[in-house]
């Protein structure tokens, strides 16, 4: 009986290391990120400086944290359209509880986390129990939260933005955790960049090296089959929705303690940017394929393109046209690179 031998298999064409590397879902995104970086460096001499890097890494970092969480969810075969408004929801909760009700800020932050996790759990359980697409369920929660953000904020504080956060007791004890910045040369770098790296690393570890990661790929790639071989589908999916909600909370805190304010419409519309970043980073919309590092790189591409257009001093009437063209360019490049690596048909 034929047994596996170490001898080379005549049914395999020899491949270079390069082309084996290219198979990883994130390589395309990395190449695209480098291309975008070079592009803007050539166009604006201020882009690739410490000062410039401080700006676009900050911009990318909050997108990146969410994009990684959303990518996990997408790999697991679901969407979360309430992810954007969740950032505003968490920050408003903290803002209102502290400035209006005088609650201790640490307690308020934890309450916001608990609320976010519950919304995530509700999303997950509704999706699994009704069998309806998550697109429509989380669209419902998106609408509901959006209205709640506006109406409750207005009802309680009479206006649509939180003011006076800085004067809340213990503000300075918590601000550094989410909003700290350090000066390197002439560039200001924010702690959110560390969060971004941390989230992407943990997500990568979970995806590739834990049972939960295996289950995420499985429920996204073929839910029915996953269920049949005993993957706890409900637990995995609800966990993913809660992860996304928690990421929304984290980004909400970062934005709150970075600017010390939040508005009732914060985060509305951002959910699509997260999905864009994940897709640019190589995740499949249909689930079952993608990577956390790719999504983080997708956010980097988006952040660089977004700020780069300003650096290039182009007329911002054309902002979206440029952005669209950059995105398409990045995805095409990513796709082309991946197809070099593997031809599946």
């Amino acid at each position, binding site marked *: 009986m*034929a*047994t*596996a031998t170490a001898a080379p298999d005549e049914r395999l064409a020899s491949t270079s290391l390069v082309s084996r590397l290219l198979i990883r879902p994130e390589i395309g995104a990395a190449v695209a990120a480098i291309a975008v970086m070079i592009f803007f460096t050539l166009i604006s001499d201020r882009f690739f400086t410490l000062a410039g890097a401080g700006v676009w890494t900050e911009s990318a970092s909050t997108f990146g944290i969410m994009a990684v969480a959303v990518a996990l969810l997408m790999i697991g075969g679901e969407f979360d359209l309430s992810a954007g408004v969740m950032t505003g929801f968490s920050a408003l909760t903290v803002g209102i509880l502290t400035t209006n009700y005088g609650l201790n800020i640490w307690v308020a932050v934890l309450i916001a986390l608990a609320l976010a996790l519950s919304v995530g759990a509700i999303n997950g359980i509704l999706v699994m129990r009704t069998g309806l697409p998550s697109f429509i369920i989380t669209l419902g929660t998106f609408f509901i939260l959006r209205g709640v953000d506006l109406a409750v904020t207005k009802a309680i504080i009479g206006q649509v933005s939180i003011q006076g956060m800085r004067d809340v007791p213990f503000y300075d004890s918590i601000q550094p955790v989410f909003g700290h910045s350090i000066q390197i040369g002439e560039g200001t770098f924010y702690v959110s960049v560390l969060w971004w790296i941390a989230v992407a690393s943990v997500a990568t*570890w979970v995806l590739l090296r834990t049972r939960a990661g*295996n289950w995420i790929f499985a429920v996204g790639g*073929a839910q029915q*089959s996953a269920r*049949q071989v*005993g993957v706890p589908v409900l637990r995995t999916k609800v966990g993913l929705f809660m992860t996304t909600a928690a990421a929304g909370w984290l980004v909400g805190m970062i934005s709150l303690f970075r600017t010390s304010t939040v508005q009732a419409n914060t985060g509305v519309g951002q959910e699509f940017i997260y999905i864009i970043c994940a897709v640019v980073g190589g995740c499949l919309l249909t689930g079952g394929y993608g990577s956390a590092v790719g999504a983080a790189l997708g956010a980097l591409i988006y952040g660089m393109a977004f700020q780069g257009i300003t650096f290039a001093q182009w007329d911002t009437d054309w902002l979206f046209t440029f952005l669209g063209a950059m995105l398409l360019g990045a995805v095409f490049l990513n796709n082309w690179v991946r197809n070099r690596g593997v031809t*599946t048909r």
Partner: protein
Amino acid sequence: MTASQTRGAAILEVDQVGKRYGNIIALSGISTSVRAGEVTCVLGDNGAGKSTFIKILAGAHEHSEGVLRIDGEECRLSSPREALEAGVATVYQDLAVVPLMPVWRNFFLGSELTKGRGPLRRLDVAGMKRTTKAELSAMGIDLRDVDQPIGTLSGGERQCVAIARAVYFGARVLILDEPTAALGVKQSGVVLKYIAKARDRGLGVVFITHNPHHAYPVGDRFMLLRRGKSMGDFPKSEMTLDDLTAMMAGGAELESLAHELQREMGADSSVAAELAEVQQNVAAKGARE
């Protein structure tokens, strides 16, 4: 003609179970039991309800009528996970694999090997790859690369992965839905050997196949389904290979087909010959009774 001979304790038992999909009655009034150290073959025409029956045993579908007992205790299996935890491993007809995932991840999906403790607990990737490669080559499947997405394997290779997995994890009951359908002669032989081995290790086996040559040698009992109903449950002692073939081919209505085939394909057609022989047998039996 009902089975009475027992080789071991009944692990799974069903009593008058049925299954409806909306207004479609796929199965009704089925009673049988799966015993340790015994191979139950489920036979029947296409669409007779065999896969539906198996899915009930495996926890993939909840039955809509009747009772299911595990180790004598009545229960409802609401997910395959529960069945797996009770030691029931299944090869589904549609294989239950995740096409985009590598072969080794599919092999261990849901029962991953880990090493390390606490937050450092992680997948034992090397161990899983090694086991996968070894189990598959024991079935005569020499994969180029266990990191290949399983969706790019050939139909038979995929089937072998599903079987190897079930055999590896099957603790008390092994359920196989047409495992040999896509397999070559050699691989089919290996699967039959596995079934025999599992039986000898004291597992209960449920085996579905359309090939009487595969069913007869390993089966201890034969349950026949027709149009969603059970036609009875026969011990091997009451059967010959020809009886079995006749039963599988639907018994009646065979004569004309056999003649037709012989006419169409000439005398060298073993299928036609087989059918003809079976038909005579059936007729003879009918005359005896």
